[in-house]
């Protein structure tokens, strides 16, 4: 039975080398890093080593890394933790943010903050002019994701951060999809805060981090014993933190090899799909995109149907259709690109990872056209051209 995993943007397997480094911290070296005895000290050393690994992966200082329980918490800490220090004013996000940014933004809006959602063009690139013009005297923060989870488009983050600073605001980026896949240097980017997540880069679930530039003051969301320089209380998830550090270090070490290989595989797959299925629209920017992202819409049929058919053939992919997401609306990201709801319902995302091969891509290109054909034969919207 075929089993091909093309859903790495949803989550990745834990790299066995990462797991190996985590395992001792469950049963043998289980100390609480806050304790002064030997086991406590060993755990503290491991946590600080992982902090140094994550910092090195971002070009950051060790004191600028705060461990969180994942990317969503990091995004919440960035937006709410920064803005709740002020009286309600104004902030800016893009129209294609992940719910982990979109929802805290809406929560702040309910607390009296004004928020502007900056549109993107047909490739998913933010409208830089609209972004620049959205700043007001009371704009405190702008947050734009580094790379989009649905269509893979990478934003001009350095420029956006510079513009925010010119207007006197801080800049945050949700880089959950990007860290580990493309080189990130917080110094060169000029960002004030950056979120990342362990399970998107072959690390464990339930661990993430927020980079906080020195001098950027936050108030915590989780109050307690004052861990993580008072920014995130709660006994540290030591195995998770060790795993995150190991995963960032491995991704960094292997990126030069992995990235061009993935990009070639991505482009091969995209070309094969576009050549073998009519009425397919490739989504996202052609070149400024994540190395493993292939996103497209298929006219006249619906995404969940494709996903389920592919699943019965052993291919695991994702869809931005309303049905697949469990809501009634198709993906807000695909609608933001300017596509109609009907076409947005037919979206599919393949996200490739380290273990994927050319043979798997070729197998997909074999299996996919007959599935589309079968569903189109079933569709009342399909009129053979």
């Amino acid at each position: 039975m075929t089993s091909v995993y093309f859903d790495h943007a949803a989550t990745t397997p834990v790299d066995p080398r990462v797991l190996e480094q985590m395992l001792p911290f469950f049963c043998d070296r289980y100390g609480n890093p806050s304790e002064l005895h030997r086991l406590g000290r060993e755990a503290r050393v491991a946590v600080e080593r992982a902090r140094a690994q994550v910092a090195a992966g971002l070009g950051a200082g060790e004191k600028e890394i705060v461990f969180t329980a994942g990317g969503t918490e990091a995004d919440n800490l960035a937006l709410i933790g920064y803005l709740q220090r002020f009286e309600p004013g104004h902030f800016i996000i893009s129209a294609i943010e992940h719910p982990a940014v979109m929802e805290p933004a809406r929560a702040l809006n309910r607390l009296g903050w004004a928020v502007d959602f900056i549109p993107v063009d047909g490739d998913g690139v933010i409208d830089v002019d609209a972004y620049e013009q959205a700043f007001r005297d009371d704009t405190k923060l702008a947050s734009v994701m580094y790379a989009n989870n649905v269509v893979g488009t990478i934003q001009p983050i350095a420029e956006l951060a510079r513009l925010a600073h010119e207007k006197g605001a801080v800049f945050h980026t949700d880089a959950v999809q990007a860290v580990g896949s493309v080189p990130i240097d917080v110094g060169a980017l000029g960002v004030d805060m950056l979120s990342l997540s362990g399970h998107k880069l072959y690390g464990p679930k339930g661990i993430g981090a927020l980079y906080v530039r020195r001098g950027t003051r936050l108030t915590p969301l989780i109050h307690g014993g004052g861990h993580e320089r008072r920014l995130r209380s709660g006994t540290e998830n030591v195995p998770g933190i060790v795993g995150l550090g190991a995963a960032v270090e491995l991704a960094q070490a292997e990126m030069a090899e992995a990235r061009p290989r993935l990009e070639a595989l991505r482009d091969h797959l995209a070309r094969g799909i576009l050549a073998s299925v009519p009425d397919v629209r490739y989504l996202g920017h052609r070149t400024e995109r994540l190395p493993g992202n292939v996103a497209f819409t298929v006219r006249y049929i619906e995404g969940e149907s494709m996903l389920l058919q592919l699943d019965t053939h052993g291919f695991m992919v994702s869809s931005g259709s309303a049905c697949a997401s469990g809501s009634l609306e198709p993906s807000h990201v695909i609608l933001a690109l300017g596509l109609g709801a009907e076409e947005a319902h037919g979206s599919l995302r393949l996200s490739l990872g380290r273990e994927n091969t050319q043979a798997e891509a070729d197998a997909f290109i074999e299996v996919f056209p007959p599935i589309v054909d079968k569903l189109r034969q079933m569709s009342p919207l399909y009129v053979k051209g």
Partner: protein
Amino acid sequence: MYTDLVMDHFSNPRNVGEIEDADGVGQIGNPVCGDVMRISIDVDDDRIADVKFKTFGCGAAVATSSMVTEMVKGKTLAEAAEVSNKAVAQALGGLPPNKMHCSNLAADALHLAIQDYLVKAGREADVPRILKALPKEHEHSSP
């Protein structure tokens, strides 16, 4: 999230297609919400002699369409009119809660096909007797 029976009807849908010069055709849903179902019927001696469907939509939309065609083939119009969306979902062993609204309209499409037949056959007077409740326009409460 789907029962085995839903997956069976989705993977091997029964009665896919469109009857040429059908006696009655019913369509419901719209592409904006992601589900469109079209059912065509041939009627012989007040019974559904043949029924076919075409569906744009998710797994549940396809499975309910397929199931309703199986449930009503050979039935009298009055019996077929009794088959509700809920009964179709039950026959499939249930649907996930978020699929009960948009993706569970196959019986409505069938009822519209029956109505279409009755009108075309000049039996408009029979509509209220056979179809006790006509399906409403499919609408969303959310914008």
